[in-house]
């Protein structure tokens, strides 16, 4: 399946793994921040929506 990387498999695979981990981490963090803010905003808008009438 994987091409023969020879003695370089650690370097090559390590690079791909590190990259994926970092990108996935960034995306996950961003999605989490987005969800958190969206929810808080919805709550506050609902609250203020009620009092504004």
């Amino acid at each position, binding site marked *: 399946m994987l091409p023969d990387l020879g*003695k370089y498999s650690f*370097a090559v695979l390590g690079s791909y793994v590190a*990259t994926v981990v970092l990108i996935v981490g960034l995306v996950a963090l961003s999605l989490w921040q987005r969800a958190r803010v969206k929810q808080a905003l919805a709550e506050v808008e609902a609250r203020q929506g009620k009092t504004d009438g």
Partner: protein
Amino acid sequence: MSIWEYANPKRFMQSSAWVLPWAVGLTVLCLVVGLVWGFFFTPDDAKQGATVKIIYLHVPSAMMAINAWVMMLVASLIWIVRRHHVSALAAKAAAPVGLTFTLIALATGALWGQPMWGTWWAWDPRLTAFLILTLFYFGYIALWAAIENPDTAADLTAILCLVGSVFALLSRYAVNFWNQGLHQGATLSLDKEENISDVFWLPLLVCIAGFVLLFVTMVLMRTRTEIRARRLQALLARERVA
């Protein structure tokens, strides 16, 4: 319609809402095609063996690490001159993305360098310059986080970005001066004779496109979050006053 229309947060939210799914799709497409092509369907290099496959990660991420900072610089200038909040928030949103790309460039650079140069880390000018760039990113992000008032934060971080850019350039030249370095010369010169053959160049191009699109997607998404957060802050402040 002038691009300044999008400076209005509401317009930005509306427009980015429909652009985003396309951006995500294109990003995934380019990244998958480029990386699979490069990883599975390219030969090894005569001198570098299979490690040449790291080029598909290292070069695009390094390019974007710099481009992200340039975008932040432009956005900061637009904030200073035209006071468009979307611009300031876009710069704030871009910083962690740029930092991530810088870290990827460093990690892949070190992993590539180890079998090539025999050492896990070498104080090569380019790697060192990227290490210093991470410090600039950290400082910028930290300053945004430390200041409560959003407009003050936007102003101060914009000034920092401007001054930082000058010193980042100076550092680049200083580091070059400080060490002649192990990096090969420019591999992506456009007008000079080809340094990489086409068999590597084409998948690399796709990967570069993928990383650019990744940056755009992430910044769009994160700016939307920042705009919402800003609105949240304003509403909460209104509650405190009432």
